[in-house]
């Protein structure tokens, strides 16, 4: 991708009615040098914009369509109507990140864990505590994971979570595949929701698609941490920087 060296990577932050973490996700990509468009899924459906014009897709958090039926389900159905475009994006090994509701969407579309026919292989279920929870939790990076978003990040740190349906659930076969292939890029150290294998985020085999429940965009600057440390950069910065550096 050498010819793009002098151009800003084009980022599409894709939202639906009820998406609400788009602003901070757009800003995060903007701060690391991306050229960001905030796009409603209807603009893709109507053909006003094309996915192939972009280098990175971000699916931000929120409550797309009110999380009716189950979290991310309706958004996932809309995306499936654009299945070809998305699959092409994945196969071209361009980065896709889904955060919180965006992760729920990636799971429900069958992009994570990846199924060639885009069938759902896992789910994110109601937290064990039975309700929404917002707090900073300790997480760990799997250094052996192919995930491009987590490259070179310190192994243990805190990230904020804010979700009601974040418990990663899959059958043993799927879980084994995830752990064997080191696709569990991010795990909880004090599991806050009952996720199997403490999974907080997973990637695909190539590492270009990444979905996670914690919010790196809310940890972009050090002053957004509950602990007032003197570090200049927040840990969240690196997730976005990695994606932009990758496509440059």
């Amino acid at each position: 991708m050498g010819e793009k060296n002098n151009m800003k990577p084009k980022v599409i932050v894709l939202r639906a009615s009820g998406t609400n973490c788009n602003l901070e996700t757009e800003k995060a990509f903007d701060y690391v040098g991306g050229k960001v468009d905030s796009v409603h899924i209807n603009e893709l459906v109507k053909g006003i914009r094309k996915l192939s014009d972009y280098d990175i897709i971000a699916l931000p958090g929120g409550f797309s369509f009110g999380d009716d039926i189950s979290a991310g389900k309706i958004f996932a159905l809309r995306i499936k109507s654009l299945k070809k475009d998305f699959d092409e994006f994945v196969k071209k090994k361009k980065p896709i990140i889904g955060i919180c509701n965006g992760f729920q969407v990636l799971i429900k579309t069958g992009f994570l864990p990846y199924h060639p026919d885009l069938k759902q292989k896992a789910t994110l279920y109601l937290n064990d505590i039975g309700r929404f929870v917002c707090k900073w939790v300790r997480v760990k990076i799997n250094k052996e994971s192919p995930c491009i978003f987590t490259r070179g990040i310190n192994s243990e740190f805190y990230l904020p979570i804010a979700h009601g349906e974040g418990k990663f659930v899959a059958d043993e076969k799927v879980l084994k595949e995830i752990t064997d292939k080191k696709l569990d890029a991010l795990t909880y150290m004090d599991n806050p929701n009952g996720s199997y294998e403490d999974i907080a985020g997973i990637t695909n085999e190539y590492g270009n698609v990444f979905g996670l429940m914690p919010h790196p965009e809310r940890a972009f600057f050090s002053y957004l941490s509950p602990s007032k440390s003197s570090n200049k950069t927040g840990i969240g910065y690196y997730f976005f920087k990695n994606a932009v550096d990758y496509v440059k």
Partner: protein
Amino acid sequence: MREIKFIGSNEKTLVSMNKEYGWSLNLKELLMVKDYFEKLKREPTRAEIETIAQTWSEHCKHKTFSGPVEFIWKDRSGKIKMKKKFDNLFKETIVYATKKLNKKYCLSVFKDNAGIIELYPGSKWGICFKAETHNHPCAIEPYGGAETGVGGVIRDILGVGMGAKPVIDTDIFCFAYPDKKYDIGKGFLTPHNIISGVVSGVRDYGNKMGIPTANGAVVFDDSYIYNPLVYVGSAGLIPKDKINKKVVPQSLIVVIGGRTGRDGIGGATFSSADIEEETSSSHVQIGNAINEKKVLDVLLKARDMGLYTAVTDCGAGGFSSAIGELASDCGAEVWLDKALLKDENIEPWEIWVSESQERMVLCVPEKNLNKLKEICEMEECEFCVVGRFTDTKKLEVYHKKNKIIDLDMKFLHAGLVQIAKKAVYKERKTNYNSISIKNSEIPERFKKIISDLNVCSKRSIVEQYDHEVIGQTVIKPFCSMEQRVPSDSAVIWAGNVTGENNHRGFAVSCGINSRISKISPYIMSYYVVDEAVRNLVCVGADITRGAILDNFCSANPNYEDVMGDFTASAISASKAALDISMPYISGKDSFYNQTAVKNRVYKIPTTLLISAIAPVEDVRNAVSSDIKSEGNPIYVIGEFKKGMGGSVYRELFKGDDFVSSIDLKKNRKYYLKIIESMRKKHILSAHDVSDGGFLTAVLEMALCGKGVEINIGGIKDKYKVSDAEALFGECGSKIILEVDIRKEKEFINFMREAPMLKVGKVIQGSSFILTDKGNIVFKEDVLKLREIWERKII
């Protein structure tokens, strides 16, 4: 229901008709309506009377607070201390303070849906702030009541000026104890049911809106058994050039968002009456956060494209008050059959006054209509054109070909009759006697205090709210990496929204105190104004550019003692604001918070919520409340005062009910010093002393697992107070500071004129040690105390 007949009706008939239809109009007003229609030589329509009732309701007009009051103040012996007549109590207290202070950074006060101040000197942005109550709905349908309360105050922010982006919500509740057995009247909800419903409602609505709920308080007191108070606030950011709206005749009246239905008919008039055993929950509206989120997305996009010239929210009174207010200077023609409906089974007048949620009314020049339509379609937000603004100075409402309303704007908006209320304030008898407490009693009593619902951790509630969304929350409800230490104010960075490359932001806090109000509503206002401002000081916000909101809740103002307490607290709220030099920019009041059950009337004490807001120059320097490092000295700034009145200690054990008064002029001086000292980086953490008293406040700072050693001897010597007053008293205005040991000398020198005392230090390990002149009174592991403090509330 009978035919509506005003012409020729006698007073008795008018009064009984009023009750039957639930208009909540008083006799003088009914006679005025009668006069108006007798002059027109025709009977009013149902729609016209409903419009008048809504427009003149307590809920919409606040006629008690802005009406005339005959006030008498009696001292403890019953002797008259003061007599005063107010023509307009609100203007002569709250607004008076703002006018007198005349702060140039106030960009809009009292005239719009929210007050607005400047984000920083010369900034292109303003911060708007508004708080509301939703008490009556929450008493009968807590979940829906809380949801629509949050939805309503957010629409106030969307409807201020040309629309602002909400960036923080607040919630403050007053409940009876959920873990206490009450003999509850038939048909009423238990405190436990109310709390769970309200918390879930705030959570579900606020979280789905994508606005962080990041500041608040919960008060527990038996007085709120039948009348819970649910305050919700919202602050937003608005470009300065979008502060003014303009209604242009011939422009279209466009409604975006939710459809109109039969839910919430008569909500405004219902809130203007006492709750009775047979009060129906059909007065409460149904919320749908995603509809409102769509409205938010459409509105801000359309605003920045300049597609409309004015906007307001549909709140109490529905179209009737939204369109009525926008058109009050020009006039409007409305076509109700064009409104999108939830179902067709609705009367025309019901469409007009329905309080269905999530609707905003815009003034759109015809040429922009198609562009607005495009945005709405993309965002899947419904919209309809329901009329046109005119220059007739008349309100003309049609349903198909029928004209159902034809009223003069002048009559509707200026014709209100002001009723003089009698107010008698009687000072309560209080006794001061210095109570003693044995050293051996301190450990157990302290543990009981920190597990009291008014003191314990509110984390089980707070962590259900998303307080991080938008990625701007710098000081969160809990500080330290593990979020164990309660903060004093939320600090919000503004940069993601303003897009400015700086670290400007603002702080939001609150103050509320029902225990002191029961002893002295007059002194209470000083305490709550002071507490709200002191909370801002603790994070280092610039109070010289700050502002406050008043939200009074009271029982039925037709009782002269209720009105007396209310008036006394309004007078002191005004004085407190002047003394501390913080202007009011907006406010709201809620009366009739009382309920009769089995021949007994349950009234709430006058409860004043002060919400405070102030700019923060650099959010990276905001001071948090968690103790930072071993070896640092701990100081208390502010005097310890006499009296156990208003303390949690007194509620649990025995104690006198004396409350010392406080001097906010003096406080302001040392608050400014503290902020300056923070700028000089002398101070590493700060926390205010409130519920539970001094010892609780120190413990809270150490809950991140730090050890502290505190010496009480110096406090007793310097301020001549008893052990109980020093450790657990809640009189006075105190801030605890952890000072950087390397800057201690500089700090002492800089603060020398302030009432200041070194009370202890941060020690190695995690022991919490209390000593008195060298002897250990109490020693316990902080982590053990934390377990007690972190109990569940519901």
